[in-house]
């Protein structure tokens, strides 16, 4: 039972709040660089709206490609945040404290990017509002039987839930920060801190709310990625129309989410010098989680591909063959190496599991998972049932720019977030200073 007597040394609070006060020139260089690349992405999108989707690499039969793979990838990344912080919060795992807010931040930003990508892939994006059920004189309505609209509602709910899930525990921090900052930051913090006074009633309510929110967000997160998986599973495209896509995508989501979390933790640790707060213990636990998810992921992959190989249905088998032996083989095998072989080698031996190796695995897993999404989307589409409609896809600079811009947007948002809000909850951290 922590006692108030050992008032933690002021170093903790100063260190956690140091980035909020001043920002070094390196920070501003990074921000401008990211802003430039994001602007390039937006320019590419503008050019695509003006000219039409033809400037991207789309073709018949591959009607979905990079943007849809990015969409699934970013929605996947967003799941780690809530899932990890929600699970850890529900299971009172002590070591989660410094990890939760960073994870929740990943969720919100990844979701924002994931929510924009369906707009980018629309053929006539200036009519996107037709997807929203607004009453109109033309008595027209979106078709709620389409999985795309399940996506819309799911992501809409998930975005709201996870932003609130990030915001609520932020309130106490902001209340304290309001008293210590000046100028526009003070007004911002005071506005966001609502009427927080630190009364035990409020602490108690916050505790109860976060417990419940954790449960709800967990449910939403699982449902969102199942719905995203159903975009593909509902179609009768061979090697899309399979029953395990829901759980397979959820596992993939947690897997890539943890990897993203590890990378973010590692970079925060290095750039914000939070060595004493993000200790090897955290990375060790995350490494174990990553290994677990890698095993789960390879299990699902083998399950899916084995059944198709054994069944040898011509339609499915032609996609399978192009994936294992044919022109998608390099992607498939590099994916398996990046997602399973590397993590398994590096993480299963305790001695090898260090911050560096976990981060390396995280990077390889992220790349591997992006390739997996690309494979699922493009490979199945390039070999439709009728061999006469087969077609090979190759991306153009537009898709590559927009995909790169989506990664850089994530870093840009994170840079701004770390500048404005404390990345580790001060009150949560001190609560278990000696835990």
């Amino acid at each position, binding site marked *: *039972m*922590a*006692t*108030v*007597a050992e*008032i*933690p040394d*002021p170093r903790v*609070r100063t260190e956690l709040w140091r980035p909020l006060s001043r920002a070094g020139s390196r920070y501003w260089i990074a921000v401008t660089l990211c802003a430039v690349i994001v602007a390039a992405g937006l320019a590419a999108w503008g050019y695509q709206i003006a000219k039409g989707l033809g400037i991207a690499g789309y073709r018949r039969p591959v009607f979905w490609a990079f943007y849809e793979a990015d969409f699934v990838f970013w929605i996947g990344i967003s799941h780690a945040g809530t899932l990890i912080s929600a699970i850890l919060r529900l299971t009172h795992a002590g070591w989660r404290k410094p990890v939760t807010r960073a994870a929740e931040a990943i969720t919100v930003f990844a979701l924002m990017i994931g929510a924009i990508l369906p707009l980018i892939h629309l053929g006539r994006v200036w009519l996107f509002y037709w997807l929203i*059920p607004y*009453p109109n004189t*033309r*008595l*027209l*309505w979106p*078709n*709620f*039987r*389409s999985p795309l*609209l*399940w996506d819309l*509602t*799911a992501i*809409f*709910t998930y975005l*709201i*839930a996870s932003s*609130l899930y990030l915001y*609520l525990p932020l*309130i*106490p921090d902001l209340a*304290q920060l309001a008293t210590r900052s000046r100028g526009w930051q003070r007004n911002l913090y005071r506005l966001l801190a*609502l*009427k*927080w*006074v*630190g*009364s*035990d*009633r*409020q*602490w*108690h*309510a*916050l*505790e*109860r*709310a976060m417990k*419940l*929110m954790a449960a*709800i*967000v967990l*449910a*939403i997160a699982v*449902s969102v990625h199942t*719905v995203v998986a*159903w975009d593909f599973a509902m179609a009768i495209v061979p090697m899309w129309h399979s029953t395990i896509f829901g759980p397979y995508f959820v596992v993939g989501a947690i897997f890539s989410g943890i990897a993203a979390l590890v990378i973010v933790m590692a970079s925060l640790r290095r750039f914000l010098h939070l060595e004493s707060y993000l200790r090897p213990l955290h990375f060790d636990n995350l490494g174990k989680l990553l290994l677990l998810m890698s095993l789960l992921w390879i299990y699902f992959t083998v399950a899916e591909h084995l059944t198709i190989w054994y069944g040898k249905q011509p339609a499915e088998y032609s996609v399978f063959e192009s994936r294992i032996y044919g022109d998608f083989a390099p992607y498939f095998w590099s994916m398996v190496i990046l997602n399973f072989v590397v993590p398994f080698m590096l993480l299963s031996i305790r001695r090898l599991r260090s911050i560096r190796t976990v981060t390396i695995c995280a990077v390889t897993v992220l790349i591997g998972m992006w390739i997996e999404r690309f494979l699922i989307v493009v490979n199945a589409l390039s070999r439709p049932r009728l061999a006469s409609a087969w077609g090979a896809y190759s991306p153009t600079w537009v898709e590559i720019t927009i995909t790169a811009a989506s990664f850089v947007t994530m870093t840009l948002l994170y840079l701004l977030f770390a500048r404005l809000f404390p990345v580790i909850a001060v*009150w949560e951290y*001190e*609560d278990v200073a000696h835990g």
Partner: protein
Amino acid sequence: MLLTAEFLTADSTVQAVSALRAEGFSANDIELFSYRPLELPEGMLERRSHISLAAVLGALVSGTLTTAFIFFTQHNYPLVTGGMPLVSGWATGVVSFELIMAGAVAGVVLAFLREGRLLRRDGAPPPALKDDSAFLRIECPQESVPRVVRCFEVAGAQDIVEETETE
């Protein structure tokens, strides 16, 4: 009469609270202010909280709203869908689930804001918090003030401030 006392350690605060409870003061007169959540023994200051109830309520409300909305659009909002069914079983299920969850989240957040009185806070202004100390405030009639002061001193309060409620 409002009495506020500052305590330097968590134990002294807990001692003070248990003493006040022993004196028979009810839980909702006492309020504790601190920068960090203080863990008190069970039942010391139990706060009835309706957040989970609010969550369920929110879910129910949004559930009924969604189904009503769907039936309304299905039956008398004359939609042109070229004769296609407006809604089919499974699709409604997925969409309703999402909106029910949204309702639950809304319920939780609203209950939290209401219970934590984060939007509107009437009554006496809260004491200015200090980094490493906690404040205990109790609202009691004039005559029981000395008993309260005695409890505070026994628990080792730093300074005690008396205020009259400024309604």
